[in-house]
């Protein structure tokens, strides 16, 4: 009641007063937003702004990882991604950094931050902004460099300043490398919170960017652009070989700063045996190992979030096993073949070679359509193994730790994968579960047992007991209950909990770790001839030794590229290597095939041979897609024939030159 009278009184008084604007002052404001002053003038506010800047970093997630080495979810197709690396054209994010930088200087001036703290924040902002531009320059070439918030010019006489022209590609690379360097100089050696960039994160990224610029310069001719393009003529998307050695030198210098005396090292180096190596390599990707990780992202959010790697687990191992969602990605045979064998358990020297499937050892052969081409008379030409995991037992510890293969121990069980069988009567059947008897039900389960005859099912199991759920190749894309199963025998297990199934996978993601700095140094030295060759060789072999190998290999490009593939599988690095080295397989070109000459993804089909009353295993090399009319998915090829420069969507609106266009276009 008191309030009512107060309101009447105010209303009465206000009749005599010219304005009652005071009624609207001192209101609470928009409680769903945070006022700028609360963010820009306090350290906690700056941290919140910083969280946004970090979250805008491109590509720091598992979701679009190195699918170049994988098959798509549940499909025989490529994962949904182009052959390029992810780009970055986000000037809203750039503006946020520039606003942040102004706020830091303001806080410094007002004494809210001391010089030291202000330098650290500034260093982080420069690091993040350089990272953004690094992601831009690698696919757009030279880009407009914006270093202040520009919206203030809208509606003023200086509106021209809104239109920033593209810098040349070289200038942009130079600027990015310089920004990383500046950031490194400002940043502390160690941050109290480990998921923030420090001095060595910046040097490591500088080395990565410099190696990228060097590689593009060095191999520009492999995929040279049409010289008539306007952007090429203006050198906006243009590099040349003569730029390369300066960039290699920068990469060597920056990498050296991390290698020499930073304190960073490889986690679990020089293991006692293969088993130790394997367990170290598993641990590395289960929890953040600060001694090796230079910069990355934690998924331990404090909530039930997940890093997305549960999508990599074959569905039969996933939590609950009821889902119809994304089934696991699968690993190509191409990658599996890349991993070396140990000579033996003790001397552990390198023994390269593909997985042996044929008696004659000709492992370049593969089946185009295994359902048609694989016939009963061919069974004898295949190499028979006694156990299903026999071909993988002495493979590189990294393969064993990071790839789930047939017969591997996983989550307290054995991972089975079977794509067909040689039946007791000697007839063969590939992909039995894909066949329908016409009434919509699948006629065969894994071992070929007729679904309508439960008793027979028990007698025909060749291995693995009667639990059909844990086998891959179950009904291919989905089984008869609509559940997705993985249709391939290899799936990635990096980042995946090896012990229990959980919907919440919170393994960390390493954006850059010490091993990459080592390999960067090795590649820069090897390619340029600059720097310390013996140190470079040591860098290369340090990585191999951690994986349990005891011998040293030579500092050759082949050996370096091999390590890029196997050490960084599923870390989105191999695609980057191919991109910066212009090394994708191109059927129209002869001199650029770092990927190899196959140009196709292959898979391995494990088969049980239970003919003649005994049990053994054979493996078919095959193209995964049998026939377009029967199966979903297209024949995956790995060729890349497009330009390495992306179009700029808003080039007209932005009044800049687009890539890949002739001047009059």
């Amino acid at each position, binding site marked *: *009641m008191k309030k*009512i009278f107060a*309101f*009447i009184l105010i*209303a*009465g008084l*206000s*009749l005599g007063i010219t304005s*009652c*604007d005071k*009624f*609207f002052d001192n*209101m*609470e404001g*928009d*409680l*769903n*937003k*945070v*006022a*700028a002053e609360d963010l820009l003038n306090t350290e906690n*506010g700056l941290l*919140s*702004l910083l*969280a*946004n*800047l*970090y*979250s805008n970093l491109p590509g720091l997630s598992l979701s679009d990882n190195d699918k170049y080495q994988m098959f798509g979810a549940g499909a025989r197709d490529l994962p949904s991604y182009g052959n390029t690396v992810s780009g970055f054209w986000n*000037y*809203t994010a*750039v*503006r946020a950094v520039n*606003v942040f930088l102004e706020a830091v200087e303001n806080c410094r001036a007002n004494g809210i931050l001391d010089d030291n703290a202000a330098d650290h924040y500034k260093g982080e902002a420069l690091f993040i902004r350089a990272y953004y531009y690094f992601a831009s320059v690698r696919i757009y070439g030279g880009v*407009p460099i*914006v270093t202040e*918030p*520009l*919206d203030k010019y*809208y509606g003023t006489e200086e509106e021209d300043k*809104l*239109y*920033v022209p593209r810098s040349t590609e070289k200038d942009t690379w130079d600027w990015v490398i310089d920004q990383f360097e500046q950031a490194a100089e400002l940043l502390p050696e160690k941050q109290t*919170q480990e*998921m923030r960039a420090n001095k060595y994160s910046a040097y490591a990224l500088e080395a990565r960017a410099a190696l990228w610029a060097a590689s593009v310069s060095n191999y520009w001719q492999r995929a040279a652009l049409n010289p008539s393009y306007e952007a090429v003529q203006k050198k906006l998307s243009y590099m040349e070989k003569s730029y390369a050695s300066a960039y290699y030198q920068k990469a060597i210098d920056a990498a050296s700063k991390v290698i020499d005396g930073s304190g960073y090292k490889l986690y679990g180096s020089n293991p006692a045996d293969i088993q130790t190596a394997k367990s170290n390599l598993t641990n590395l990707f289960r929890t*953040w190992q600060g001694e090796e990780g230079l910069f990355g*992202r*934690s*998924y*331990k*959010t*404090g909530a*039930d979030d997940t890093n997305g790697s549960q999508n990599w687990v074959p569905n039969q191992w996933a939590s*609950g096993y*009821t889902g*119809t969602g994304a089934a696991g990605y699968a690993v190509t045979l191409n990658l599996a073949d890349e991993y070396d064998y140990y000579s033996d358990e003790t001397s552990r020297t390198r023994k390269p070679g593909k997985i042996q499937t044929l008696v004659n050892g000709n492992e370049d052969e593969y089946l185009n359509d295994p359902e048609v081409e694989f016939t009963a008379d061919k069974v004898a030409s295949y190499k028979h193994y006694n156990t299903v995991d026999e071909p993988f037992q002495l493979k590189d510890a990294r393969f064993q730790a990071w790839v789930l293969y047939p017969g591997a121990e996983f989550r307290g069980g054995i991972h089975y994968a079977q794509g067909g069988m040689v039946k007791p009567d000697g007839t063969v059947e590939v992909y039995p579960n894909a066949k329908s008897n016409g009434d919509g039900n699948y006629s065969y389960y894994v071992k070929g047992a007729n679904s309508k005859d439960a008793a027979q099912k028990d007698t025909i199991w060749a291995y693995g007991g009667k639990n059909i759920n844990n086998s891959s190749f179950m009904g291919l894309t989905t089984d008869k209950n609509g559940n997705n199963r993985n249709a391939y025998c290899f799936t990635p297990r990096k980042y995946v909990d090896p012990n229990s199934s959980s919907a919440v996978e919170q393994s960390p993601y390493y954006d850059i770790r010490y091993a990459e700095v080592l390999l960067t140094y090795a590649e820069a030295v090897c390619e340029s001839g600059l720097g310390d060759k013996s140190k470079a060789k040591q860098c290369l072999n340090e990585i191999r030794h951690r994986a349990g190998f005891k011998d040293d290999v030579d500092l050759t490009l082949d050996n370096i590229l091999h390590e890029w593939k196997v050490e960084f599988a599923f870390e989105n690095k191999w695609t980057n290597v191919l991109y910066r080295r212009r090394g994708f397989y191109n059927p129209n070109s002869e001199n650029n095939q770092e990927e190899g000459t196959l140009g196709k993804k292959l898979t391995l089909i494990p088969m049980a041979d239970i003919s003649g009353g005994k049990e053994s295993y054979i493996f078919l090399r095959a193209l995964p897609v049998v026939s377009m009319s029967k199966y979903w998915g297209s024949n995956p090829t790995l060729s890349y024939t497009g330009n390495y420069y992306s179009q700029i969507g*808003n080039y007209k*609106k*932005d*009044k800049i030159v687009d890539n890949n266009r002739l001047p009059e276009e």
Partner: protein
Amino acid sequence: MRQTNLLKRAVSLALGFFLGASALLAQNITVTGTVTDAMKEPIIGASVLQQGTTNGTATDIDGKFTLSVPKGANLEISSIGFETRTLKADAAEINVILREDSELLNETVVVGYGVQKRESLTGAITQIRSEDIAATKTADGVAALQGKIPGLLITQNSGKPGAFASEINLRGFGTPMVVVDGVVRSTTRTRKSTTWNQDPNALESYTDLSVLQELNPEDIESISVLKDASATIYGLGAQNGVILITTKKGQVKKPSVNFSANLSFAQPVVPRQVESWTSFMKWENAMSDVGKLGHRWADAQIAAYENGDPTWTDAEGKVHDTVYTDWYDEVYRKAAFNQQYNVSIMGGNDQVNYYFGGSYADDNPILKGNAYGYKRYGFNGNVSVKLLPELTMRYTTNFRQSSNLGMGDFDLDWNIFYYIYQSDPTVGVHPKNNPAHYTDVEEHLNPVALLDPETTGFTKTDRKDFSNTVDFTYEAPFLKGLKFQATGAYDFGRSKQRTLVKSFILYSYMDDLPAYTWSNARNETEYAEMWNDNARIYGRVQALFDRQFGRHNVSAMLGAELTSITNAMIGASRYYGPDKEQFLYTHDVINKGLLDSRSSNQGTRSTSRTAGYIGRINYNYMGKYLVEVMGRYDGNYMFQKGKRWSLFPSYSLGWRISEEKFFKSILPAVNNLKFRWSDGYTGSPQGSAYAYINGYDTSGSWVFSDGKTTTGYANNSVANTVLTWAKVRMMDFGVDWEIWQGKFGGTFDWFKREMIGTAATRSVSLPDFYAVSIPQENLNRSETQGLELTLYHRNSIGNFSYRIQGTATFSRNRATYIESEKTNTNYGSQMDYWKSGSLYRWNGAFGGSTYHWTGERFTSIDQASSSQILYSALSSSEGNRALIVGQYQIEDRNGNGYIDTDDVYYTWGSGNPPLQFGLTFSGSYKNFDFSLLFNGASLKWKGYGLSAYAGYGFLNYLPSQYTDAYHVTNYGDDPWDPATQWTEGFWPALVRLSQVGSYNAPMYGANQPYNFVDATYLRLKTLELGYRVSPNFLKKAGIKSARIFFNGGNLLTICSKYLKYVDPESNDSGRAGGEFQINKTYSFGFNLNF
């Protein structure tokens, strides 16, 4: 009552004067009498006047009067709100019954911040009284207004208890503001999103009209609707017009108690007519034949059902039960039972008067189970006290408590009727031998289980709303006609919503084993609560002046008001699952959540404030020339200093040509002809509050170290210092007429509203480097125009008196400037522009699309496949192969050789229709009274959108309407054999959905000629018959009067014959029920007056 007292004083003065004079006259007789209303209630303060003189008196508290007049003189007896009667004074005692009338010219009409006589109104204002509202028996106050007020466009969308799904739109402007007892009481509130398939924690804001929806008609004195510039006096937000509700006040009379009860039975308006189970099985097999699919029902099975065998044996020798479950009967009641009770007491004397009313309403669903229901308790009261001879205080209070029960999961709620129609009738509700479990059916949603809150959960919304108003009125003794008023109000409301969504297990029919385990949304139990707390504080002072200076009538008002509204919300939820073994769910309280059960919390708060200075002057010369000028200087908290205040002026003019001497001499029969014109401005708030402050939103997050997530913030827009309210101009030209003392009359209005400067983003090209979104500015414009017509007639023939009123409203709106369509370069072609542009296009006129029928049909499959016209784009890859016998041939309008969406033509859609009409016919004969209310609408079309579900084998029922389809004459004949005989029908041949793959296939489209139906309708909304029992009969029981009545709702509908199975009014689209149908009701009730 003020008027009574004034009148009494005036009359006694006059009386004193004339008493002396009258002594001089001979042959005077003294007439005594009682003036009562139709209920035999005394009318206090009625004026009794000797015609042509100033000799008169007023009735006392018992309605009695005594007056000395010459014998045979005419006595004119009048009272506000009643028809005036003239009687000859030829007996010593005269008892007069006055009939209430709302149409009379001197009726008092409630207008913004005051009252006016109807004859001097210059705005478009309609007022209706309590009885008219109460004639429709419904718990939804908005539905009770349907068809009664010209300009109010109302459509009932659903018959779900407590859903209040009636759309209300005034003149096509939008949802009007609701003012109760002088205070704006409609407001914006937040609730859990009720939209289908939403994040369970999503919120939506909505305009809370509960003061109107939950009103108890018996507590209402009158409802006035301000439809033109007269609404602008309510300031910002009044751009859609204003509904003014005035509650009943005490009267100077003996205490009088009124009790009424209304009991009603409700059934769906559209009866269910489906084929018998065996007929359905045969029809579906015939559909399979058309699609060359295997029969779904074995002949042995059909035979078993026909013969009533307990089991049947399939081809593989397996024996099946011959179960038949009519899911409709399992979940539908024969009728829903609803009840409403109301009791009120009123009375008073010179010093104090009072009114108190209490009410109870209970609405039940047509569905069995305890899943739905609505209950409401209401209390309304006011006390008026004369503190000083000049100072009156009145306290008005209103308290409502309502409880609304619904399903826990909105997604299921939305689909419940679909589940009823598609559940498999060949299994039982419960597994064969276990009544404790529910059977698994299609989509794993057993409708009986869904209607069992114990199994699947519930949403329970409890609301309490309490409003308090205090008025002080001071009649200035120093200046006649001047008074001061101060009003304050404090309202608060609380609503709490408790939601339980339970995970549940269904079992297979034959072996009672768990048949399905939910994996995603329903694999865990969620219990959530959301509490809302709202408060409004309001204050107003005003000075009013009303006085007649000779032929000049002047009234003026000056006032100031302030409003502050606070809304706060807090919500929490707990999850139990998905591993059911780990999580025991026990009670529906938040605290029972285990430490490690998942939880989520949310909360927010907001305050809004508005203020305004109000001024109005009315002037009229001899009631002939009428002028009103008003203005408001409005302030709003949303905008920055310097942009918060603005002046909104209005004026209106009226000319009562019928008062002109020349007119009276030419057309004496016309007792009223008035021309009105009004034109005024107000503002429509838009955009978000405090946009002028640079505010940051959450944006991304980063884990700085393991387990510690920091939320990021970013501002991707700049502070908006340019946007302000849209300016609204409201215009109205009206004509009111009446002839033969009200026997015939009517009004006509043309109206137009312009919205100037609605928010839009400027279409400028800025480079990516600008990097923020451009602030919205006041750029766009739109207009609404329409016509409104009312005609009435009333008459008495002997004891039979009646009244007929017809109303019609037509309204439409369009954009007159759209910034984004500044240039039409955004459109690929003229066709694109025509299809998707909206500038200068009347809204709604393009809401529906249909193909033209050439008049020909495909009579054989060969004919369809050899057709010259390609149906390719329309039917995706299937082309003409998807066509079936009986399919309508479609006109290739653009002649390009194939049928695609470019061949449709556009017409009115299916929303709240722009043309609505109402017809009221009411009257009385002796003790009988009746009223009929028709309501209708046109310019509305219905697509049998998903008739595919019902007619094409998707459901487990076949609505009988679809038997009027092309079909093979002899069941079992091969449809592909050219020799087969076909029987023609309205629908194309029925095909199982699995043949054509998708209900997007051409024959299912809502825009096919046979699926697209004109939904013009006329509906008997209300039929009421009442009988007043003679008081003598009941006097012994202490009852002064009693009335019993029958009331029917939605008893009759006239519409296209193709809408026989689909309700033309509601959202029902033939999708097997879809929404809760609106109901047909049969009510019985009585009123008692003690």
